[in-house]
């Protein structure tokens, strides 16, 4: 979707606004409210989650910022100019217009792609934060027994065995809960989606 949208926007740069950034400049920050889509025309942009983890390097012809334009949620990563960068900023309404007119693009499909892209970025973001999400998921997955979805946990012992603080363990459980993978009850975890849990265990 990203490549097709970039291709569709490339001939339309006169509808956007040109911006130039010096090396090292922040283009947008994770958590920002912003709905513009940016098409890189020169230089290298790094997408970063957390404090320092690069998740992608983008160059001329690449697009960034399309998640927020399509779902209205905050930016999922920060964009930094790794070299001097030039880009063109398109408004969200221009981008939606382009999607509607393009035979190669479909708004519903684009939004689905964005949703899965967000999930992927969020997972990487959590990994960066040092939370034991993957370890926790593996441990829980190993204790799943057939259809039985309840896993009793002793938070103190689990934290010790994962070599993390109870606070980190609680945040990791919260993260799994936030993603809809588990529900939390006193002294136990209810696995809502075993496949998702195994996917997190594999990906983290």
């Amino acid at each position: 979707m990203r490549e097709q949208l970039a291709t569709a926007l490339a001939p339309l740069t006169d509808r956007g606004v040109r911006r130039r950034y010096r090396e090292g400049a922040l283009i947008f920050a994770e958590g920002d409210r912003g709905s513009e889509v940016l098409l890189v025309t020169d230089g290298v942009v790094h997408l970063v989650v957390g404090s320092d983890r690069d998740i992608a390097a983008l160059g001329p012809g690449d697009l960034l910022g399309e998640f927020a334009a399509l779902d209205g949620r905050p930016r999922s990563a920060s964009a930094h100019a790794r070299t001097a960068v030039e880009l063109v900023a398109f408004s969200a309404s221009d981008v939606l217009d382009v999607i509607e007119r393009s035979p190669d693009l479909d708004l519903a499909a684009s939004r689905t792609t964005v949703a899965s892209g967000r999930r992927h970025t969020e997972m990487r973001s959590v990994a960066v934060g040092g939370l034991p999400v993957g370890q926790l998921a593996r441990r829980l997955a190993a204790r799943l027994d057939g259809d039985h979805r309840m896993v009793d946990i002793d938070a103190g012992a689990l934290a010790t065995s994962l070599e993390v603080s109870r606070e980190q363990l609680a945040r990791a459980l919260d993260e799994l809960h936030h993603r809809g993978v588990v529900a939390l009850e006193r002294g136990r975890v209810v696995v809502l989606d075993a496949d998702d849990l195994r996917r997190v265990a594999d990906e983290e």
Partner: protein
Amino acid sequence: MLCRVTITERQRSCFAAHPDRSPLLVVDLDVVRQRYEDLVAALPGVTVFYAVKANPLPELVSMLVELGSSFDVASIGEIEQCLAVGAPPERLSFGNTVKKADAVRRAAELGVTRYAFDSECELEKLVAHAPGSLAFCRILCDGFGAAWPLSRKFGCAPDVARELLLEAARHGLRPGVSFHVGSQQFDPAAWDRALATVADLRAELLAEDVELELVNLGGGLPGTYLEAIRPVDEYGSDIVAALRRRLGPDLPPEMLVEPGRYLVADAGALRCEVVTVARKSTTDEHRWVYLDVGMFSGLAEVMDEAIRYRVLTDGADRPTGPVVLAGPTCDSADILYETVDYQLPLDLRAGERLYLQSVGAYSTTYSTIGFNGFPPLDVEVLG
């Protein structure tokens, strides 16, 4: 940790020395000096321009000149006042976006080199009468998180600002940007949000080979009213971090901040007198307390009840009940607080003195010159 203010010993002594003067505002310049020094320390790399409009007392402005402050001025009158007490014109910024052409011409003659604008019309005046000056365009901010969000009277949308600044540069003016996050701003992140917009604008100017030379962070730092506030070094570290993050690594050559309220509000304590206590109905427990000071004698900021002064009485542990506070004039708008929950002693009587804290900002000159025959606010300055 949150900050509270008290009436200083010097202010108490001054009230005691003038028992018959009421209402009386006592401004303690030691408080202003401390605030200035705290702010300079909290914002390294950022120049402090005191917003003279907040309190133009000559002794106060003179002291800030000596401390090395620069000044945000709103009119030729304020420019001349600052120059008269020794502020060099290069330490002035004409921050009003509404200026007569004659005022721009006169300011330029007096050596002022920084000007705010937000429209084509104002830009034309700067091009004609202040060539080569630093022209900073004010952009609109959302004001979210402020006790007194500013209206849309000042500023323009960023896309308009871009075109105006490109036009300014074409005419040899040096482009800058200003914004104001809203007066009495409780949320330090407000500056970060505004700076994100500034960063976009800066990148758009750079794409046209135009360098942004000045970023004006405006005012908005709070005074201490009913709500306690965070210490200024916390605001400072958040703002400095936001500047580095949004505009680094190559920061603009000049960055400035325009505090008014923050520097002077807590320096002013006002003593006033209860004129009348009235019960309006047998079923309403609210008493109406009429003071000898009101909206027309220096407390105009109670408008919309956004600025909420702390009200103190003598004597501790007196049982209290709810009151409506009003001023002494025959004008129905002269009500200080009707919806905010103020409590005063149940035995409060006419003739008792009350103390209002943090009345140093937007009070001395916000007083009418004789509405209903009442004189302007009486002020003592402790240098």
